[in-house]
């Protein structure tokens, strides 16, 4: 049997800010009243079943889901057992934001907070944190060189703490982050300590900023530990569109699309995966979709039909 080098995980942020229940007991409580599909998206049990049915092995959480995992399940290991019972291998990672890292006076609080998220993902049996490295561009940008260095210092400390617990911190750039187009290469190549901090290649976020994700993988594959794969039609977007308040939600743009629906040539990326013998988790995101189930299914179809034949 052919070796499977890649495993697919799914970032669950698009299912909701607060998933309302661990398990719906009676669909008809909702369906009899409003006859809508909303009830199919209210509980973790259904969300995980959709992922398993689509062939995913893992899932990712957002850091803001932690209180609700603890409220509903108690210890994170109970949530890990819950998803495994339904057929997923594990919660592979968590996304978080080092908001304020460009301000050295806030480092203690930020490190303390993210240390707790490291514990959370470790308790879940997960492997990494995808970490947006600084505040949103609005209102703190543009950052000075010193602020960029301060951010890197903070991330490096977080990375060292996480590595001691077996968790990888992976810097995840966003097109609306304060660490942006004019700083990100310096930040990633020169300032972060690659022994303790890796990179998460979000194919759409970097493309919107003006970088070719295929080129970045070719250059940085040695320290790329994780991926957020999503497509985009908004390549190399002007600064003013990325830097304004609420950029991700302000313009009415749909920034992100299913794999194959935008301008990224994922077949080239998978060809490079084969070249460099890439192993581990590939996480799919469905940001901006009006229907996470449809986008998840379409994306997995594209992967299974066009990408897996290149490299699995």
């Amino acid at each position, binding site marked *: 049997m052919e070796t499977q080098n890649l495993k697919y995980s799914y970032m669950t942020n*698009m*299912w*909701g*800010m*607060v*998933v*309302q*229940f*661990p*398990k*719906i*007991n*009676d669909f008809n*409580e*909702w369906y009899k*009243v*409003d006859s*809508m*599909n*909303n*009830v199919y*998206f*209210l509980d973790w049990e259904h969300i995980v079943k959709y992922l398993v049915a689509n062939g995913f092995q893992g899932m990712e959480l*957002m*850091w*803001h889901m932690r*209180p*609700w995992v603890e*409220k*509903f399940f108690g210890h994170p290991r109970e949530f890990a057992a819950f998803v495994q019972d339904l057929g997923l291998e594990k919660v592979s990672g968590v996304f978080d*934001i080092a*908001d304020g890292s460009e301000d050295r006076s806030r480092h203690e*609080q930020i490190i*303390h*907070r993210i240390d*707790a998220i490291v514990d959370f993902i470790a308790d879940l049996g997960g492997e990494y944190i995808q970490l947006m490295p600084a505040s*949103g561009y*609005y*209102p703190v940008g543009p950052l000075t060189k010193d602020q960029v260095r301060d951010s890197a210092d903070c991330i490096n400390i977080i990375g060292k703490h996480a590595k001691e617990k077996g968790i990888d911190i992976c810097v995840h750039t966003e097109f609306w982050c304060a660490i942006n187009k004019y700083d990100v290469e310096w930040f990633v190549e020169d300032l972060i300590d690659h022994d303790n901090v890796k990179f998460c290649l979000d194919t759409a976020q970097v493309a919107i900023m003006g970088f070719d994700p295929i080129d970045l993988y070719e250059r940085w594959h040695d320290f790329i530990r994780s991926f957020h794969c999503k497509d985009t039609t908004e390549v190399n977007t002007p600064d003013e569109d990325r830097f304004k*308040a*609420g950029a*991700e*939600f*302000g313009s*009415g743009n749909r920034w992100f699309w299913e794999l194959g629906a935008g301008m990224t040539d994922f077949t080239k990326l998978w060809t490079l995966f084969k070249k460099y013998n890439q192993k581990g988790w590939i996480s799919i995101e469905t*940001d*901006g*979709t*009006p*229907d*996470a*189930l449809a986008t998840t299914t379409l994306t997995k179809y594209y992967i299974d039909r066009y990408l897996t034949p290149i490299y699995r």
Partner: protein
Amino acid sequence: MKFGLTTEMLTIRTCGPGWLMKMAIGYWKKFYKYVGALGFDTIEVPSSPFIHDPVAWEVTRTGMPVSDFVINAMYGSFEEFFQLLKESWINEITSVHLRGIDAYEEVKESYISIPDNYLPKFEELIDISIDYCTQVKGKNVIISPSPELGIVKKWILPEDTNAALIKFEDDVIDLLNKAADKAQAKNVTLSVTNEFWSVFRKEKLHELMERLDTCIKYAPDTAHLYIQGEDIVETLKRYKDRLACVKLNDTRFIDVENNYLSLHPENPTVGKQKVFYDMGDGDIDFVGVYKTLLEIGYDDYLIFNTEKTSSIPDALLKMGITRQRLLDI
């Protein structure tokens, strides 16, 4: 009596298809027009100024009018915000609603001692909300005076004892009375509400109202009273001289499993789980409530609300039906 609608019905603390759209400023601009088109020319807005709670942080990137930061960042300025509302046939912001749980979330996510810092943070939240109310030219600040009882007992009290809970109640009451003076100085009226999961539920509400300064009003929510098993009409009559910003909100949920004690009372895991219903789909007699308000000479705002709806447009239309066809107002 004047009529309004609370923008808190459009929340992102939820899930489901299209929830993300509710974050976009473009969706909010449409929402205001829907509200105005249904004849609601008055709205209530939430006050949620803190950002360490990650959901609150996300909210500052949306069109939800929760703080002066959002108004200036997303709408340009207060003047531009008012102009936008006017173009949506909305002429007034009647009230601002703040929640004790937001103070708890802020302290929790700041990784400082919760028992030591909750009350100062709650006081700060009230102060900010009073100022925000004056900025939006509102007249009322409605306070949910405690987080969920289960959360208070587990994480806010220094120890889970009756004595500690009583001290918490005493401290909150002192804080509210102090805040009333500040509010009066700025020509703002404070009111308290009592969710079914509040520390100040059932008989505790009456103790609270007896001990609060008489200038602090009571802003009941019909759904939360129903869930607690309270007689809505009798409660309105009891407080007929101290009512403000009465909320119409529907439900048919009866809390037989004592969810009010849990850490997630509005998201039950055992038994019935749907706590709130679109207006008209629950069991609350809004005609009876309205008739009672007329009978007691209530002359303040009647705020329409729907919590955790599956569809914002449907919920809006149902509130419109209740108001225009059922209550004929």
